[in-house]
């Protein structure tokens, strides 16, 4: 199969859905000729013109809200927040408007909107350009939250997200953007709420979010002679495929959840909660979360890298969980 970059997969999904449905339009900063800060929207402006690929001024609240209103009126906007961190300036429109309007209207109105946002740590841009905020959105009833780790998943899930009638927060990892992976030429969709087992194993269940997936796989490789790690990528946090995780735990009895967001109140805690509720009896060891440090992200690369688990950290954590 041909291999393309994650960001190219995103681009293809947008291209195809815009061809499929004339109600789909893109709005965000620098999304037209510039193709977005990371080239995710490259070529779309040339093909679909300024009304469907709309450059916005630096007015996140305004243009995100505009997208919500357009969705309420029946279009299917895809709003790009240049860096997820900037969504803080548009939170009201995301949380109090997009997420709630369908419920508040007694289901009379839908807001079929996708908010795409490149995010994540590792680009040496410091505290205001590096946050992983998935837990906020997962905590907000009315939003779906998608966090793909491969080009294949990114394309299939973005297409589904655009067709979904709920507002979807679609988080694209900036480090993964430039990694390649197999993506078929034919159209395909991936349903929301279906985890993917990225590596089979019998000794421990490692649930990894987004950029922690390749690090988990690396750790699995490092340990493969002694330990068989099962690496699960939930792919969507809301809805969450807890069944696949619980099923794996039945076999392994051990859980490690990995994410780059700060550990405190991160999504890992939620997985531990759900596992405790639904699969406690499978647990042979304390379920554990390895997340980011509870600090803002520092600029200095040596410190930045210290903030999130490395493959070595993952391997260490796994070894601590599995007695020998």
């Amino acid at each position, binding site marked *: 199969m041909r291999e393309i970059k994650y960001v190219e997969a995103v681009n293809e999904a947008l291209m195809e859905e815009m061809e499929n449905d004339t109600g789909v339009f893109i709005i965000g900063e620098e999304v037209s000729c510039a193709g977005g800060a990371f080239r995710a929207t490259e070529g779309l402006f040339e093909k679909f013109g300024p009304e469907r690929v709309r450059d916005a*001024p630096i007015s996140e609240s*305004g243009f995100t*809200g*505009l*997208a919500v209103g*357009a969705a309420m*009126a029946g279009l299917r906007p895809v709003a790009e927040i240049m860096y997820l961190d900037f969504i803080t300036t548009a939170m*009201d429109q995301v949380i109090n408007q997009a997420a709630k309007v369908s419920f508040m209207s007694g289901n009379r109105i839908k807001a079929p909107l996708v908010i795409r946002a490149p995010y994540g740590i590792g680009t040496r841009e410091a505290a205001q350009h590096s946050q992983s905020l998935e837990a906020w959105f997962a905590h907000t*009833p009315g939003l779906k939250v998608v966090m793909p780790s491969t080009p294949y998943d990114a394309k299939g899930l973005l297409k589904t997200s655009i067709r979904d009638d709920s507002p979807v927060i679609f988080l694209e990892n900036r480090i993964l953007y430039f990694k390649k992976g197999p993506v078929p030429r034919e159209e395909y969709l991936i349903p929301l709420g279906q985890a993917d087992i990225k590596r089979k194993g019998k000794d421990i269940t490692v649930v990894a979010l987004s950029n922690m997936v390749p690090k988990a796989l690396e750790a699995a490789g490092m340990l493969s002679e002694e330990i068989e790690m099962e690496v699960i990528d939930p792919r969507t946090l809301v809805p969450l495929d807890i069944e696949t995780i619980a099923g794996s735990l039945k076999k392994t009895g051990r859980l490690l959840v990995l994410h780059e967001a700060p550990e405190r109140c991160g999504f890992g805690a939620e997985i531990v909660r759900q596992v405790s509720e639904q699969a406690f009896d499978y647990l042979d060891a304390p379920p554990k979360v390895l997340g980011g440090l509870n600090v803002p992200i520092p600029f200095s690369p040596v410190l930045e890298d210290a903030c999130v688990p490395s493959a070595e950290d993952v391997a260490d954590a796994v070894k601590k969980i599995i007695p020998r």
Partner: protein
Amino acid sequence: MKKETMPEALRIMYRIRLFEEHAKKMHKENLLAGNFMGALHTYIGEEAIAAGVSMLLNKDDYVFSTHRGHGHFIAKGGSIKKMLAELMGKEAGCSSGRGGSMHLFDTEINFMGGNGIVGAGLPLATGAAYRAKYLKTKQVSVCYFGDGAASQGTFHESLNLASLWKLPVIFVCENNCYAVNTPVSETICIKDVAQRASGYGMPGEAVDGNSLSDVYTAAEKAVARARDGAGPSLLECKTYRIDPHCMVAGDMRKKEEIDKWKERDPIKLSEKWILNEGIAGPDDLRKIREEVAEEIKEAEQFALSAPLPDRKKFREEAMDIDGSKGALK
């Protein structure tokens, strides 16, 4: 404003006034659902605005409203029955009892909801206008907001976007002199909110919001401009809220000030005008008023007898909204 349409506009104003007077009574009698914090914000004294603007709107034009939305809802043609049921938290309410007074919806007339967040409606209305332009439907989008909302960042961002992209939206600022207890003189340091339009290169006009015909005339220009594809307008309607901010808020305004404004009651002014011009006689007006009163009586019956939503069913269904199970059952 065409003379023969004046009685129709007056009927709208009666419907708003009588509805709210009735809702207030029911609130005092503890018949409404939201009595705890009294989130019932009346529009009494401001009726000419919604009436004047709505006379220019088609059924499929969009309206985005505020926390103070009963008047906007009625003027656009929303069902009084369903609104009253909503205020009682009934399943038959216009938002199925999920929204309440601040979140009225009616998709059949593109009434796109009230809003509990001051200033949040402006980007939304701009978005509906984006769709109208996108699909070349010739619809316009009306956004009501208060003088208080003019201090929100969304005001700035929305007016700018709408003007840049020549979107068919009419920003109607209902300047009723106060945001809760804060006088407008403490929130802006210029004479008119409308002056800010120049910062976005769009027309801005301030009019007497208690004069039906002044509102109508100004709105007519703004709506025409929007329908013609020439872009948005800012229309400031100077008015006054006769009641306190909501049913439980303290009121720090001077009685004399309130009384002075009562003399300029938009309904009285319109009645006078109609009678003076001989468009209709006192009996005609009395008849309209009686019809409206009857309508509200029926609405009350409807709302009182409608069933409340079911707790158990709700808890069960809630589990499924996002596919995840919760512990409550």
